[in-house]
């Protein structure tokens, strides 16, 4: 009797662990899976022209220190902008409300994250607040295109100085 009990116990433990691992791998690893657990912190939104490949869960940092995470990324059809909701840890509750949020890249191949540069306001961001000043993700391809366009123009025009910012924007827009 005792051997059967320990046998069933061991088998049960094994099967349970196995299915728990399978459940974890199939539902938690792929991005489309279920989300479990709740996080603390207050929510702040920001609207960006272009979020690049920013993903939910990416860090939000100030001066290089992680202060929160990207909770979700949506789209606002009225202003044609991406709405990024960030969850900031409760202990970082003194972020000036005129701060600037920019989408930056970690390293050369790294993922995107949001860097917040503090402003000078005396009032602070609260839960549900919005960061007004934003800077979109730098899309590497556009940068490379710009660089080559610039380069080609310089080559054909001889010793002319490089095109101004406005001209570059023009050239890019007409494409």
């Amino acid at each position, binding site marked *: 009797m005792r051997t059967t009990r320990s046998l069933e116990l061991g088998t049960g433990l094994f099967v349970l662990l196995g299915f728990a691992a399978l459940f974890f*791998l199939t539902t938690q690893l792929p*991005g489309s899976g279920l989300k479990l657990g709740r996080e603390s912190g207050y929510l702040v939104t920001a609207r960006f022209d272009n979020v690049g490949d920013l993903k939910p869960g990416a860090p939000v940092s100030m001066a290089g220190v992680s202060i929160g995470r990207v909770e979700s990324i949506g789209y606002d059809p009225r202003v044609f902008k991406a709405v990024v909701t960030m969850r900031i840890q409760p202990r970082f509750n003194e972020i000036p409300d005129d701060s600037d949020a920019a989408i930056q890249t970690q390293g050369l191949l790294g993922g995107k994250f949001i860097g917040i540069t503090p402003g000078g306001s005396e009032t602070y961001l609260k839960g549900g607040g919005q960061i007004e000043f934003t800077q979109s993700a730098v899309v590497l391809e556009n940068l490379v295109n710009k660089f080559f366009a610039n380069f080609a123009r310089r080559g054909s025009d001889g010793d002319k100085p490089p095109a101004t910012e406005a001209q570059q924007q023009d050239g890019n827009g007409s494409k």
Partner: protein
Amino acid sequence: MSRRSLAESPPAVALRRIGAVALFLVRILGQCLPALRQPQLLVRQLYNAGARSLVIIMLSGLFVGMVLGLQGFDLLQRFGSEDALGVAAALSLLKELGPVVTSLLFAGRAGTALTSEIGLMRATDQLTAMQMMAVDPMRRVVAPRFLGGVIAMPLLAAIFSGLGLFGAHLVGVQLMGVDAGSFWSQTQGAVKLEDVSEGITKSLVFGVAVSLIAVYEGYHATPTAEGVGLATTRTVVASSVLTLLLDYVLTAMFL
């Protein structure tokens, strides 16, 4: 060359062995449904093959994951993209290391036990005695062991991958200071359900291959002490080689 020596030449022997194993698989499959009607036998084999391999699989998974964390961090750091550590660890564990290392360990831990157990039954005439009592040893002995191994392998591989990921997280995030959010968000962004199912399919195929070889070698072992020892060795060698070979074929299929 005479006819006899041709039949005994190594290629012919190998061919005959492959055929015998395939026929044995068909015989087992025929007995699988009747074996499922005796679940207590299956539970016992699940315990022998699975629960008893749990400790070695968990420990190996953890340390393989930790090594992946270290090596992956060192490599990715050179390109300034240590955040991709989670993706690297998760994909290599799910698709390759999980199924393959689990299968190799499973062959050593459970496969050898199967072969020597059935081989000793053969050597001590227990299988013949069963036949005398009109009990089919294929149904009573071989099929439950085969099924137990086939069911246990994917579960073990999943446990291996899960703990490996935990080990990579332990080293990468806790020790090396990769951001936990980037680690998981990049992993979730890059891992697709197909990657997970590729790993599960692989481990299932390996489970069939290793269990089949183990029971075949045991069932056909020369009924002596030496014969059982040789059969056990053959199980490890054949199932390890077959695992790696099938891994290549399956990887090529999934790409």
